[in-house]
Structures are given as structure tokens and as C-alpha cells.
């Protein structure tokens, strides 16, 4: 599984920017920070032993600052992402740009929720939210899972989608995503958020980022951006809702803010549907 590096991404656009001597590096950073594939691969490389010696890097921004040079970024992107593998996530009926949009919405919702609540949001919350659905890509693109028996079981037995995944596949996509990122030696805080983001009550310990990403994922599914066949078939944690003192009014405010903010990154999504980034 550690060989799996081809996460759908806007690698082509990023590479084109790198090849332009007049490129705006802040724009490159913006692309990477909103792309699960590029962020995962960047963190994988920067946390590998080759660059070790400091504390683990937890955000794309930190990693970009650490690496610094265009040449190193070019190495990261060209070795970390293979656009030819980029494809629709068949099993989950998710077009790649849909998954990108959903991932960004989870990340933005988690961050915005913390801001509206007036909390000191951990710096890796956005990254963890962005990567939270990465297990779906492994199951969909590489195992080519047949989602129908999972869906049928969820409907007939009244299970949440991840419970049905457990029954049919023996593992759910959150746990698989956690295992993948663990094998990539990403920081344990991020691994834990990804692994437990659907079932935060099973996490032994306290993690504000986990609580925020759990609710961020719920909000993203309700908002509906990039929904797959699994739809809204997940159960929000009452304990997390109580811990964060959530109310319908607060949820509405965060959802409205997120949809407004999505307008500011729509260009990234459009870039990913262009011919240059055939997914």
C-alpha cells in the first residue's frame, strides 16, 4: 500500500506553474494546500528520512517553506504523483474533481467551525480534513470495490456506510486511510484524525482537530459538495456535538460561511476539469 502514490490531483497545473520561470510561488502553494493528492505526497516526502532531523511537518505550507526551492518541489511533484493513474473513483461513483471538492469542503468546514466557535484551531486541522477521505480513493481506484452490496447492506440493515464497509470488506475507508498515512509516516495527529473521523468516540484521548474534522465532514455531506453514493449515510457523534456545544443556528452559520468561501476557490476546481488535467 505504501507504493500507492497516485492520488487524483491537479498535478498538471502545478507542474506547468513550476516550469514557468515567472511563476507565482504563492499560487503554487495555494494549489497544493487545496489538493489532497499533492498535500499527501508533499507531506510524505518531507517527513521521510531524507528530510528528517526536525519535528514532523503537519501542513503543506510548513512543508513548502521547509523545502523552499522550486527544484525540490518539482522533484516532489514529479515523483509523488502519477497523473496517468488519476481516474474516476468507480466504486464510490465519484468523479475526481468531485472528490477534490468534497475534501476541500471538509477541510474548510472544520477550520470555519473552530473559528466560529472561537477556538484555538490546531494548525494541522485543515490538512487532516483535506486527507480524511483518502481511504476511499484506495478502495475505489485500486481495489475497485463494488459498492452495491455495501449500499444494500446499509439500507436493509439500517447501518451507517462505514459499518456496512466493515461487514462487507472487513475494513472501512477511514481506517484504511489512517493505515496508508501511517505507512507514509505522516504525523500521528493527522493519522488519528483520518482514522477516527467517522467514529470519534472510539478514539482514546482528546483531539480538537478530530472533533472539528468529524463535524466538518458531516457539514460537507449536508452541504452536498461532491457527494458519492454513500450520501449522508453516516452517524454524527452526539458526544462531539455536546463537547462543541453545537446548535442548529451555529451549524447554519458555519454552513453559510463555508458555501460563501467555496466561491473563492472555485477556480481551483475548474482548473481540475480542464483538458490539461484530464481526470
Amino acid at each position, binding site marked *: 500500500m505504501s507504493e500507492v502514490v497516485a492520488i487524483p490531483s491537479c498535478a498538471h497545473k502545478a507542474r506547468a506553474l513550476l516550469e514557468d520561470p515567472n511563476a507565482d510561488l504563492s499560487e503554487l502553494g495555494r494549489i497544493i494546500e487545496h489538493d489532497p493528492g499533492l498535500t499527501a505526497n508533499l507531506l510524505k516526502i518531507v517527513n521521510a528520512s531524507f528530510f528528517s532531523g526536525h519535528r514532523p511537518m503537519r501542513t503543506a505550507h510548513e512543508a513548502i517553506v521547509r523545502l523552499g526551492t522550486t527544484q525540490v518541489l518539482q522533484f516532489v511533484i514529479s515523483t509523488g504523483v502519477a497523473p496517468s493513474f488519476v481516474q474516476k473513483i468507480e466504486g464510490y*461513483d465519484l468523479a475526481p474533481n*468531485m472528490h477534490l471538492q468534497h475534501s476541500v469542503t471538509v477541510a474548510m468546514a472544520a477550520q470555519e467551525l473552530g473559528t466560529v466557535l472561537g477556538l484555538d484551531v490546531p494548525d494541522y486541522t485543515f490538512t487532516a480534513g483535506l486527507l480524511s477521505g483518502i481511504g476511499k480513493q484506495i478502495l475505489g481506484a485500486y481495489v475497485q470495490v463494488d459498492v452495491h452490496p455495501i*449500499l444494500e447492506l446499509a439500507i436493509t440493515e439500517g447501518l*451507517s456506510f462505514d459499518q456496512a464497509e466493515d461487514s462487507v470488506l472487513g475494513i472501512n475507508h477511514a481506517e484504511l486511510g489512517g493505515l496508508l498515512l501511517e505507512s507514509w509516516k505522516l504525523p500521528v495527529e493527522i493519522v488519528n484524525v483520518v482514522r477516527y473521523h467517522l467514529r470519534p468516540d472510539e478514539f482514546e484521548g482528546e483531539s480538537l482537530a478530530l472533533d472539528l474534522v468529524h463535524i466538518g465532514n*458531516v457539514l460537507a*455531506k*449536508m*452541504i*452536498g*459538495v*461532491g*457527494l*458519492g*453514493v454513500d*450520501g*449522508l*449515510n*453516516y*452517524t*454524527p457523534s*452526539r458526544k462531539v*456535538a455536546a463537547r462543541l456545544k*453545537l446548535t*442548529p*443556528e*451555529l*451549524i*447554519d*452559520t458555519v*454552513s*453559510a*460561511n463555508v*458555501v*460563501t468561501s*467555496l466561491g473563492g476557490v472555485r477556480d481551483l476546481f475548474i482548473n481540475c476539469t480542464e483538458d490539461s488535467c484530464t481526470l
Partner: protein
Amino acid sequence: MNTHIVNISDMKFSNHAEDIIVTYSLGSCLGVTAYDPKIGIGAMVHCLLPSADSARDKARDNPFMFVNTGVAMMVRRLMDKGAVKSRLILKAAGGANMRGDTLFNTGLRNFEALEKLLGRNNVSLAAVDVGGTIPRTMFLHLNTGRVVVRSLGKEKEL
């Protein structure tokens, strides 16, 4: 033929018979269509939230974000273009909810807001496909006013 895509918190209308209006990925959001068969004009709105109570500034910027302001504004736009309120055929889809949850029931609250608005105006819905935990895509065909809902790979006419 033109396909008009309605984004979240957005509304599109057309009076061209060959056009289709569509909105994708309805989760808790509510999609509402209105069609006047006499003059062949129709519209679709995709509302995120029931009412602007929690974000009044946003209702000023974009009334289509909310059911109570968005649906009313859509009907008003159609009437400005010659539609007659009593002839309008209204249909709704979406309003899904998270599994086993009562706090996050935005889908239910969206539909309740629509019922309240329509009840106050003595207007009834011709067809609905709301609730559950499934995602939905909604189409309005301007040539006939036909509304189709696609979910989990299956289509059905409303």
C-alpha cells in the same frame, strides 16, 4: 440545447423549450422547481438553509441561499417574465438528513420552511422526493416541464 447548472445557493430560469436546468449533489439542500405550462417558462433554485435568521447579511447578498427568501424570489422572477402564480407547478427534491440524527436535521428544517412559505401563500406542491440519507440530482426539462430526480444511478419522474 443549453444545460443550465444551478450551483448551491443559486437559481436559474429559462423559457427556451430545448433547455434543461439541472442541479447536482443535493444533500440536505432543497431543490425547488416552478414551471408555467402556458408560456413554457421554468426555474430551479438550490437552497442551502431554511431561513436567513442565522445569517441575515448573507440573505441580502444572496437570497437564493435560503428557502424562505430563495423560493419567493424565484417565483417573483418568473412572474416578472410573464408567468402567472396560479399556473405554476412546483416540485421539490433533496432535504436529506444524516443517519440517526436530530441535531443536524437541516434537510427536514429546509422542507418545513418550504411548507410554511407555500402554506402562507395557499400554494401546494405537485410532487416531492425528500428526506432519507441519499444524494439527489434534479432536472427540469423546459419543453414539457418534466422533472426528473436521479439518485444512486436510478432516475424517476416527479
